[in-house]
């Protein structure tokens, strides 16, 4: 339905630009609050904007009405912004998606030794389901995890691993790649931790540091450079994507 590279949000008619938004303002409910909500909506580019719902939060009385200090709003309207698809820099896969057999073959014939992969959840993050989904045999979304790949030597260090320990282990085991998961994002914990990770490896190993791959549901794949790591995977990543990337990044092209 999009003509060319410029599109707008679609409510029920091409180009109507309709969006829904909701937010809370630290203002008691009332006309002033509604006006404030409209002001914000307009600043977001929603014009005309309709405050279609509002209610107080935190007031006395069971229903949180009276004397509420906050107001929650639902706003509908048309954003004037245009979306330029041409300007979208996509993290399209820059490498082919390989089957486990292909991955193993590539490593065996072109790297000629098994690929050493370390995985962990750093800091105080105890969410292992994500990294397990990538590493464990069981895998994710029907794809087997990296442990299933014959030519990979995978060690899953689990959760709450200190960065220092991780660096040490990586050096000892001559890891080719270190895979780190970060799920808790409150106060950008995941970004801080990732930067700390990158820093520590640079410190300790400089150029010879292993490939650094981080992942988690709230990461933006476009942030790798900014975070000082080689690759970032977001929500819904599958083991196959990761394996394919590792081959792409670590296994020399076959020279023809």
């Amino acid at each position, binding site marked *: 339905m999009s003509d060319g590279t410029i599109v707008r949000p679609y409510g029920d008619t091409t180009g109507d630009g309709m969006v829904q938004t909701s937010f809370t303002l630290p203002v008691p409910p009332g006309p002033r609050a509604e006006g404030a909500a409209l002001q914000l909506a307009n600043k977001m580019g929603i014009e005309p904007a309709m405050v279609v719902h509002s209610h107080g*939060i935190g007031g006395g009385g069971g229903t*949180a009405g009276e004397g509420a200090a906050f107001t929650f709003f639902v706003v509908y309207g048309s954003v004037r912004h245009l979306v330029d698809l041409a300007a979208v820099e996509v993290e399209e896969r820059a490498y082919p998606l390989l089957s486990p057999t292909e991955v193993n073959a590539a490593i065996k014939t072109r790297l000629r030794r098994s690929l050493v992969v370390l995985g962990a959840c750093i800091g105080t993050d*105890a969410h292992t389901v994500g990294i397990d989904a990538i590493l464990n045999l069981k895998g994710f979304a029907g794809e087997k995890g990296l442990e299933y790949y014959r030519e990979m030597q995978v060690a899953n260090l689990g959760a709450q691993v200190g960065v220092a320990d991780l660096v040490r282990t990586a050096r000892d085991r001559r890891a080719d790649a270190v895979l780190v998961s970060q799920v808790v994002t409150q106060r950008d914990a995941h970004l801080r931790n990732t930067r700390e990770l990158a820093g520590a490896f640079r410190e300790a190993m400089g150029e010879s540091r292993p490939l650094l791959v981080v992942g988690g549901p709230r990461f933006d794949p476009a942030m790798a450079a900014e975070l000082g790591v080689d690759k970032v995977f977001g929500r819904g990543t599958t083991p196959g994507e990761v394996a394919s990337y590792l081959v792409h990044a670590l296994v020399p092209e076959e020279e023809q």
Partner: protein
Amino acid sequence: MSKLALDPVLATRARELAARAAAPVVELARAHTTVSVERAVLRLAGLTGTDPVTGDGPEQDRVPWVNRVVDAVRDQVGLESGVALPVWHALTSGTAHDLQELAEQVGAGTARFALPADPEPAREAARTAVATGIARIDANRARRDELVAGLGDPPRRPWIYLIVATGDIHEDIPQAQAAARAGADVIAVIRSTGQSLLDYVPEGATRTGYAGTYATQENFRLMRAALDDVSRELGRYVRLTNYASGLCMPEIAVLAGLERLDMMLNDAMYGILFRDINPRRTFVDQRFSRMVHARAGIVINTGEDNYLTTADAVDEAHTVTVSQLLNERLAHEAGLADWQLGLGHAFEIDPDRPESFRLELAHALLARGLFPDAPLKWMPPTKHMTGDVFRGYLLDGFFNLAGALTGQGILLVGMMTEAVVTPWLSDRDLALRNVRYVLGSAGNLAEDFHPQPGGFIDRRAHTVLAEAVDLLERIADHPQGLIQAIADGTFGITRRSPDGGKGLDGVVRLAEGAYNPALELLEGVRV
């Protein structure tokens, strides 16, 4: 109200097996102490504060005196007999007037500890000192009863249980009050991601937690006071919950008693499975903390719900039942009464699975039927929540309905942003509106809900119970019982060996003549 006719023979058999499977754990717990148990003793005796020398950062980063003292004792005479004898020996022999002064001597490095030849005077003194702490816990319990009597309990079951988690106690407080005004009966302040692994309890009012707020005595005090205010305002006693888990479980339990918290998350296995804390450490700590909770009249919440975040809620449903039976057994052994057992379970079946809602009803009714006198803690969908907040809001509504249909005791309110962020103020408010609608419009639908004997729900419940009994047989038959089952990855498909994990070095086998005044006083009474 029991809607299922469970096989009584099977139920009895399940409890016998649970007792056998738990026995090795109880033995182990009785034969050991831990640094945290010993620190808890000192806290009961009134030792507070931190060693100023251990850091000029915020107080929360400094080492508490209880840690300094216990470490000193351990260095000098070991913990095999507990801290009480060496510490009160030092005091009775006059090297210091009181614990505080003794602690400062430890700080200065001048304190000298030894085991007394005649333990009686030290025992005597220790018992008296610790009794003051226990007395304060008793007073808090009495005070709670008084407030509940005066202000009243929530008008209906399930109680509405809500989480705050800003990391900043001063943001938590207004949010907790807002939630209470909007209908929450119980407020839980979840903890900063890292706290479980700290081998000390931070001090003071804190503002810097991640995805949760530090559990400190001062934060407990501030929040309890704020909720007392709002309780008066609403004419309904609003309960406060925190987490007696991690490496400082016993101390947190004591602080909860001292500050009149009302419920505590306290599971026999959560720390082991999900925080990789050493099993021995956890088993010793949980027994002590449960004895404290029993005395404090605190309702514990167990963590079976967590298993279903790593294991499939249908395939592994029976492991929840098994864990509930084990938690019940260990709780009874520690002196907790049925009304104090908020056994956990959750609405975690893949919503895209056909009949998922009826399967949830079957599982929820099974728990209800097996533990008629326990205020079951019914946890909302989390694993299958996605960024589609509309779908999430709907799912939470059906979770609420299931809670009402199956007579759950404590309903932990689900958040539509579960998959996105720790709850926002507005998420909590919307969630409570969801609960109000469902309970108000359909809360009595239970009157019309009658699973047919031999029908889908009835059959499913029986299957799960049977699977649970099978599993318990296998666990009970092993000499190490539960300890072995954990090593085998029975719960949450997570394997933990008895010698692995964090905090093992804090476990000490008790010697002849070891003395723990707290245990003595707590074991005295049985609630």
